[in-house]
Structures are given as structure tokens and as C-alpha cells.
């Protein structure tokens, strides 16, 4: 192995190295801080826009007249009507349309053609 020739002499460092060190670290810190700042500002803009939208919605809601409060009898009547309507529904239907062909086994008892033919023969 080649002998190690290492010197420890701080005076050997030129100012360039010190400047690169200081400036480089500052730039890295500033860059990542700027990234963080952008995210924070994005939130602020988003919150501002969301706030304006919410304000608009609340303004529209405030213009509409308040609905009349229903009495207990009216509520009971609606509940009874709904109960009666749903209790009438005794069959569960599959409301699905399909193009699947229904297979039906052939039988002379259910064959229209066979019956008509026989009737004609005996006529």
C-alpha cells in the first residue's frame, strides 16, 4: 500500500472551500424552506377560496325563507303512510333486465305446433 500523505493544516484551505461550504448550506436551507413556504401558501390560498365558497353558500341559505315547523300530527300521518306503503310490499322482485335466454325443455304437452298438427290430423 502506498503510504498515506495526509496533512492537517487549516491554513491550507483556500477561501473558496469555506465560501462553498457556507453558501452551499445556506442555499440548501433556503431551497427547502422555500418549498415548505410554498406548501403553506398553497394551503392559505386554498383556505381563502374554500372560505369564499362557504360564504356564498351561507349567503344563499340565509336568503331562503325558513321552513314551517310541522306539527306532531302531521309527522305521525306521514310516518303511518310510509309504514303502510312499505308493509304492502310483500314480494321482492329482482328489477334487473337480462337478455339471458330462458331454457325450456320440449314437451308435446306444451307444444303449440304439435297440438295444432294433431288437431288437423283428426279433423
Amino acid at each position, binding site marked *: 500500500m502506498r503510504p*498515506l500523505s495526509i496533512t492537517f493544516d487549516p491554513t491550507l484551505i483556500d477561501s473558496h472551500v469555506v465560501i462553498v461550504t457556507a453558501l452551499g448550506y445556506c442555499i440548501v436551507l433556503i431551497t427547502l424552506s422555500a418549498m415548505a413556504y410554498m406548501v403553506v401558501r*398553497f394551503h392559505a390560498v386554498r383556505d381563502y377560496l374554500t372560505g369564499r365558497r362557504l360564504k356564498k353558500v351561507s349567503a344563499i341559505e340565509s336568503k331562503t325563507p325558513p321552513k314551517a315547523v310541522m306539527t306532531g300530527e302531521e309527522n305521525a300521518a306521514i310516518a303511518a303512510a310510509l309504514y303502510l306503503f312499505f308493509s304492502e310490499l310483500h314480494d321482492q322482485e329482482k328489477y334487473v333486465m337480462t337478455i339471458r335466454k330462458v331454457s325450456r325443455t320440449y314437451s308435446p304437452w306444451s307444444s303449440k305446433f304439435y297440438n295444432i298438427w294433431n288437431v288437423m290430423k283428426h279433423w
Partner: protein
Amino acid sequence: MKLLLITDLLKGIWENTGFTNLHWDNGIMILAGLILILLSIRFNLKPLLLIPLALGIVIGNIPFMHSAPYPIGIYAEGSILHYLFFGVLKGIYPALIFLGLGAMVDLSPMIANPKLMILGAAAQVGIFATFLGAAILGFPIAESASIAIIGGADGNTAIFLTSQLAAGLKSLPEGEKVMGLIGPVAMAAYLYMALVPVIQPPIMKLLTTRKERLIRMKPQRTVSRAEKIVFPLVFLLLTAFVAPASLPLLGMFFFGNVLKESGLTRQLAGTVSTTLIDIVIILIGLTVGASTQADVFLKWESILIFVLGALSFMVATAGGIIFAKVMNLFLKEENRINPLIGAAGVAAIPDSARIAHEMGQREDSTNHLISHAMAPNVAGIIGSAVTAGLLLAFILR
């Protein structure tokens, strides 16, 4: 006559074998490679990275006749290994790994709590301190930068910077030829990435009190899809404008992230984050390992690079933790940061974040720091890549 010919042939074969050309330094490196393989398997130390690397060490140190008429070694022009090493020498592999990394990484923790990004910048103090230290020890400025970048704890950034600053054949004043620093720098960086669970915890414990380790951080808010798409583009523009030299890394990183977050290119994101990155890791591990050919690698400078790299990594870890503690002085009680996550400011992703989480769990098993620690960890990758770009720009101007 025939007997003479056979004897000559046998002699030629014997001279070509590894037994004749074996030198003690090759033996040491092969042994080191074998130990590394065993350690990696036994202790599950980043096997995906260390096994190709360690096998590369073994392959790169198989002794052969240097005067052979056919190219064998990784430094012999025209050899297969040399062609594979091209991706390291020209910084191609690191760029491709950054592409895959970008497609794997989630920027949400960073967007949800942006102040944690500053921890990723703070941890870069290790790089700059070592840069100064290496220059004091007499290393030329380009080599100092290559050694210092090990503190970023990201092997890919280290390879990228060293490939630009201190790669290739060099002639020393006394006529000796050395092959640049890419071998030792890459080895040190990858080794310290694997040794994060060993190096970081003592520093974390030393610099924090129990009370600080128990700090619970506020749960993170949900990040919208729009934010996940917008911010990679914003970050790309900002970092590329500040340090254009880091574009091969950060351009690929944010490109990969956009592929993932756009939601429409999942197939591409899936390929770069799995198949492509696996292929590149195999190639980079094998060739970096093989670049530790004993006659080039086994020098006092390599040992010094390992020592300086370790110091750089330790200073970076300490820098992140101390900066988190300083930030806490200015933050409200409910917004305080657990200083353990400052250690994740180094770019060893996701190991340093996992270590911060585990250290927190040792004190309080219900305190989950992993999602918070991922923010400085990702910022650390970006920070070290920006640092590499700045060093390149400063030195090669």
C-alpha cells in the same frame, strides 16, 4: 516433443489460474466479501443491496493474470464488467434508481407538515462539515466533495457526484495509477445505509432526553389528490432552477412521483418501482462491489474515506436532531416536534425513518412516529440531491 507441448500448455493454464496470481490483498477482499454476505443473511442487513454488493467484491477480487490478452477486470477496457460499470461511471444507474424511488415515495407527510422539510435540509450539515474537514486533511476539493456526500447517506447521490468529480483513471505524481474514488465512496455510502440501525440509535439517545422522545406529534391531515400532483411539479421546478446540476436525479425523482400520483400511469409507475429498480440495483451492487479490486481499493485513502464518511453520517444525524430541538423552542406546545425524527433527515429511506419510529416506540409503544419521520426522510433525499448539484456547480464552474 508432444510431452513438451503438453507441459507448456499446462504451465500456461497454471499461470492463468487464480492460485498463481493470488495476492494477500485479494484474499482480504474476498474474505471481506464473504463475511459481508454472511452478515447480511444472518442479521437481515439490507440483503437486497448488500448481497449483490458483497458478491461483487468477491467477483472483482478473483485474482487473474493482468497481462492476459483478453480483458477480465472491471477496469480493463472492453471487459463485460467494464461495460456494466459504465452505468456507474457516467451516473446512469443513480438516475434510474431515483426514477424508481420517486414512483415509490409518498410526498404526503411532507405536504401535510411542511415545516418538517427543513429538517431534511438541516441534516445536510454533515456533508458540508465533512467537505471542510476533508479539505483540511489535504484532499483536493473535488475529492473532498465526493467524500463528504457520503454523509447524505444515499449511495446513489454519492455515486452520481463522484462519477462527475472523482471517477476514472488518475495518475499520481510518483507515477502510480489509481482509479478514482468511486469504489470506496460508493462502498462506504452503501455500507452506512445498511448500518443505519447500528450508527444512528446511540446518537439519537445521546442527544435527546426521555421527555423529548415521548413527545407526541399531532396526527397528519389528509392530503388531497390535487396537492399530490401539483407539489411534485412545483418542487421540481424550484429545485431544478436552484441547482440544475441535480436535474438527472431530481428530474427523475419527481417524474417517477408524477407517474405514481397522476393515477393514469400506474402501469409505468409499477414498472419503474419494481422491475426496473430491481434490475438497476443488481447492476449497481455488482459493479460497485467489483470496483473494489484490491490493487485499486486497498489503500490508506480508502480507510480514511470510510472514517470521514462515518463522521459525516454521524454529524448529519446529530444536525437533524439538534435542529429539531431548536425548532421546538419556537413552536407552540401542541405543534412540537419529536426530535427523534430529525435523525431521519439523512436520505437513507426508509431505514432512518423506521429507526426514529422504533426509538420512539421503545419509550411509548403507542407513539407512532413513522409517518412524521417520512417527511424529513423524503426531504433528506431532495436536500442531498440539491447539495450534490450545488457542489457540482461550485466545483466545475
